Structure formats: structure tokens, C-alpha cells
């Protein structure tokens, strides 16, 4: 893909942990490479600690990468993205209650984005544009909602406002970090539909960060599955869901709460283990300690991503063997 709007190559972000005298380094994200095409929703799926939010935060410039290259809209990004790049690649946060100033009217949140990123607009144009943006994300009637205070909005409405704010800077890619995980199940679907509408009508790409496989399947064109800081599987949503290759993806599939699935009793043991904290890691597949297919080889050398089809890549020795 040469027309990718975002290309990430061997991106790593490490954190020093454990106090001053410790030499511990947490590998939050390790050698991650992927691309996002225009008008595409890519889901980064993984558990807590898989590095999915770290990737979004590095892209948003909240902290610099330890190593690796980020090419956004054809430009190699430096340590900190410029305001223009931050506007083209805004972030929607997980907590809709912590990300809006509670003492200012809802409209202010949008006006501020417009003021910063669209200086060519005058006050009247900004007001009009704010209403248009609000209505694009389903905050209806726009003028009425913008005149309220944040506490008068429900969680779902606040999160819609988050997307309107992101839209204000005319983005090409929105980084959506678990935007629905704090919402009630019954209103999540409305937000997921907003994300689809942004892709289809505004031609924005989205990097959707989630631990929920079912919602990723619902909105995403492609899925990237992360485990302990590394990509273990990548493919189109259909490929990954109907034919999961990596044992970790299969574990995620088996544990997804879904009333439409029969309850597997034999494969579904009570203690499924937990992802490791990747501090000063040695070589080897990071899933090996929990993997039913692990071989000696898996513990001593790190499997590379192998191309299984034009669109699907997997990092697993057990698959090479079979």
C-alpha cells in the first residue's frame, strides 16, 4: 500500500520502571509495524497492558517513541507532532466524564477546537460550524445541545461530543482510545454507528483501540491483535474472525461474552492466566507461557510475522510447523 495515510515501522516505546536505582525497562510497545489506508477503520485489539493505548498515545504525541518511524500523510514525524499534525490526527479519549471542562458550556469545547485549528473562520462561522459538527455526530438539535453544560449530557452524548471535537480540526485519522468501553452496552452501538458514518460520509480513517472483539468486528475493516506489546495477528476483519490463526486470537474468541455462542466447557478452564508485564524481556514468544501449542523453540526465539495471505500476517511458530 503506497497510499497509506499512516505508516508505522518498528515502533517501540519503553518506560523505565521501579524507581531510581532500578534498571527495569517496561516494553509497552515493541517493534510494531502497521498501516492505515484512507477511509479505513483499523481495530487494535488486546487486553490491558497489550500496548494498544501506548501506540495511540505515541501517535498523538503524548509521549515520544523510543525508536521506530511514523510516517503520516507522507511526512516523517519528529519527536513531537506539530499542531497541524495533531489536528489532522486527533484523539478521542476513553473517559467522557474526565475529558470535558465541566464549568464551560458544551459549545465551548467545539469552539476552542475550531479557533485553534480553523483560524480562517470568524465568530459567526464558528458558531454555524459547531452546530454542523454536533449534528454530524448525532447531537440533535445541535444548537440546543451546545448551549447546555456537560453535566446535562449523558455519557453517550459526551462521547459523541468527543468525536465532534475531533472532527473540528478536519482530521484524516481519528485515534479512538476505547471510546465506548465506559458506556452502557445499550448506547455503545450508537457510537459505533457514528464511527462508521464518519468513515463513510466524512472519509475519515479511524484507529479503534478496544479489548472487545465483537465491537471491533462490527466497525472495523481490518484488525490487528496485540499481545504484551507485540502484534501477533493482522488481517481483514472477516479473516481474523472467521479464521483466527494465532492461539491468542483464539483465546480471545473463546472468552468473548456472547449469548449467541454455546458455552465451551472443556477448553474453557477457570484460570486462563494473565498477560505478562514485559520488563527486561528475553527472547521468545510472549504468549508461550499461556499457549497450549507452545514448543521449546517458542521460549527461546521470537517468531517473526509471516504473511499468510495478501492481507493476513501472523507471528507464531506453531502455525509454521503445521
Amino acid at each position, binding site marked *: 500500500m503506497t497510499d497509506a495515510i499512516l505508516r508505522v515501522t518498528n515502533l517501540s516505546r519503553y518506560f523505565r520502571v521501579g524507581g531510581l536505582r532500578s534498571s527495569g525497562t517496561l516494553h509497552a510497545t515493541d517493534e510494531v509495524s502497521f498501516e492505515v489506508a484512507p477511509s479505513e477503520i483499523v481495530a487494535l485489539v488486546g*487486553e*490491558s497492558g497489550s500496548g494498544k493505548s501506548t501506540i495511540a498515545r505515541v501517535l498523538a504525541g503524548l509521549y515520544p517513541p523510543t525508536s521506530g518511524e511514523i510516517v503520516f500523510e507522507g511526512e516523517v514525524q519528529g519527536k513531537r507532532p506539530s499542531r497541524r499534525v495533531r489536528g489532522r490526527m486527533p484523539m478521542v479519549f476513553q473517559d467522557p466524564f474526565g475529558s470535558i471542562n465541566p464549568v464551560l458550556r458544551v459549545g465551548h469545547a467545539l469552539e476552542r477546537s475550531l479557533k485553534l485549528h480553523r483560524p480562517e473562520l470568524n465568530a459567526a462561522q464558528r458558531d454555524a460550524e459547531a452546530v454542523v459538527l454536533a449534528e454530524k455526530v448525532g447531537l440533535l438539535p445541535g444548537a440546543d445541545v451546545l448551549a447546555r453544560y456537560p453535566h446535562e449530557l*449523558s*455519557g453517550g452524548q459526551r462521547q459523541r461530543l468527543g468525536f465532534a471535537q475531533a472532527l473540528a480540526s478536519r482530521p484524516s485519522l481519528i485515534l479512538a482510545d476505547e471510546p465506548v468501553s465506559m458506556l*452502557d*452496552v*445499550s*448506547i*455503545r*452501538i*450508537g457510537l*459505533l*454507528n457514528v464511527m462508521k458514518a464518519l468513515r463513510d460520509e466524512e472519509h475519515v480513517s479511524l484507529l479503534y483501540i478496544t*479489548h*472487545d*472483539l*465483537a*465491537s471491533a*468486528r*462490527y466497525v472495523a475493516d481490518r484488525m490487528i491483535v496485540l499481545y504484551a506489546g507485540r502484534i501477533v495477528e493482522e488481517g481483514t476483519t472477516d479473516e481474523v*474472525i472467521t479464521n483466527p490463526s494465532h492461539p491468542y486470537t483464539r*483465546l*480471545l*474468541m473463546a*472468552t*468473548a*461474552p*456472547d*449469548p*449467541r*455462542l454455546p*458455552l465451551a466447557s472443556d477448553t*474453557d*478452564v*477457570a*484460570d*486462563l492466566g*494473565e498477560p505478562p508485564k514485559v520488563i527486561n524481556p528475553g527472547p521468545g514468544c510472549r504468549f508461550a507461557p499461556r499457549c497450549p501449542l507452545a514448543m521449546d523453540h517458542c521460549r527461546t526465539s521470537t517468531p517473526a510475522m509471516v504473511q499468510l495471505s495478501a492481507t493476513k500476517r501472523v507471528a507464531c511458530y506453531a502455525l509454521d510447523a503445521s
Partner: protein
Amino acid sequence: MSTPILEVRDLQVHYATPHGPAQAVNKVSFDLAPGEFLAVVGESGCGKSTMLFSIAQLLTYPAETVGGTVRFNGVELTSLSPEELRQHRWRDISVVMQSAMNALNPTLSIGAQLADVCRAHTDWSDAKIAERSAEVLAMVSIDVTHLKSFPFQLSGGMRQRAMIAMALLLEPQLIIMDEPTSALDVVAQRSLMRQVENLRRQLGFAVLFVTHDMSVVSHFSDRLAVMYAGEIVELGTTRDVFDRPRHPYSSGLMDAFPSIVGAARELTGIAGNPPSLVDPPVGCLFAPRCAHATDECREVRPALVASADREVRCHLVNPRRVS
């Protein structure tokens, strides 16, 4: 059904607001059999957690239980003094809160917190306390070395399991759980549910479980109660309610979450917002959002009508003229 261990009748909770009382829980009635797992599902603000807190007698101002009875093993909990309630807590009824991160004391080791519960309710020796603490940790698959660990040294899933271990200490007959899985990852969620289920089989306690995500309980609860705006709108066996929801709100909820199986399809969710509980509509509380609402629905509040296997609060399911 054997004699219920918990009988809730016409439970009513109001929140004091500047605009008058909000009817957070409105005449909720149900029974819980010994060893039974009842899940209560509904949106935020439907009163499900308030109901739990009212049953456990943990409500504080501005919430107040204004009517109804809660009988636990024949004892009327609403009329007990704080000291009498204290006797029942942990020993007969344990509560597992939503956020284990906040429910555990960050400055005490897990072992000290388990011992605290034992000392408050038993005259066990230190050796007996240590033995029982190790035993309950093993039940939830936590290594006994973690008795010396502090909460920050455990993962979220382990903390939540430690809470469950604490709830099990004195072998209560009823464990009340308020969204214990909502802060967990899917894999940890499934582990926790599995463990609760195995322990319930083994030890025979009953579970009253509240969640907004009904898919979490779909494979584990015996019966499912769907709450909307403070009322139970549907109650039946879990599998049956999932497969054949009768109340329009229940079917709306079933259609609101995407699946990883079957054909991909567009979902719409349920339009609109729950009604004001201070000034609720006259008729069915769900009528303003219901696609099938008739004039009758808007004018007359439907009752919860029991049939052979299901209780449903809907005029369309229970035509009034026929009955």
C-alpha cells in the same frame, strides 16, 4: 422451588432531589432460592445497583428505602438495628463491590484484610484465621504467598478475586455482586465468571448479580431479571429470555450488542433516553421509546404479570381485557 432464602416484596427506594423524590426502585418483587444465581440487567440509572444496596441495607442519604420488605431466611432485614445487621454481614450475606481497586484498603496486606473480617465476626485463633485465609485464596486460584501482598501488587483480576475470597471467608448463603467484572478484560472476566460458577456449585451459596452487560451473565445465571426505570419489566430463565425476549425493551437490549458469530448486520440500539424518575410518564415507562406503543400503553401503567415460565410487564404481551 424450595423455600427462598431471599424474598423481596414491593421494594421502593426514593432519592431526595430538589424537584421531589426520584423513584429509583419501584415496587420490585422477586424470590431467590438457595444456591440460585439471579442476574439483574439494565442500563445505567435503571435502579439495579440501588436495589442491591437497598437489599443489603447499605443505602445512605439521599437514597431511602420507603416501602417494601426484604426477608432473608425469614428475618426481616429492613427492621434490624445496625448492630443486628452487622451480625449478618459477611457471615450470612457478603457484598462484592464494582471496583475492587477501591474496595480493598491500599495500606494493608491482603492477609490483614482477610483477618480483619474474621476477627470482627468470629473468635477464631490466629492459626485458624491463617488457615482459612489460605484456603479461600486457593479457592479463587491466588497463590497463598499473596497473603503478604498489598493490593497494588495484584492485577485487577486478582484484586477482584481477592474480594470474592473475602466474601467466601465465613461461608455466607448469599453473595451480592455489583458489576464485579466491569473493570476487567474479557479473558479475566471469563475466568472470574467461571470461578464464581464453580464455587457456587461447590459451596452452594446463592448469587444476586447486577450488570449492564447481559452478555457477561448469559452463560452463567439461572434466571435473568431485566430492569427499566426502576421496575422489573421481564423475569425468566436466562436462556429462555435470551432466546425469546417478550418485552420490547428486552428485545431491544438483545439487539444492541454486536456478536462475533453469525452474519454481520446493522444494529440500531434503542433510540431515546430513559424517562425522568421524578416525574415519570403515566402509562408504561418504556412507552416513549417503544416502537409498538399503543394509546393504552401511554395511559395505563402495565402490571408485572406472571405466566408459567415468565413474568412480563407489557400490555402487548398481557392484553388486559383477556385476563
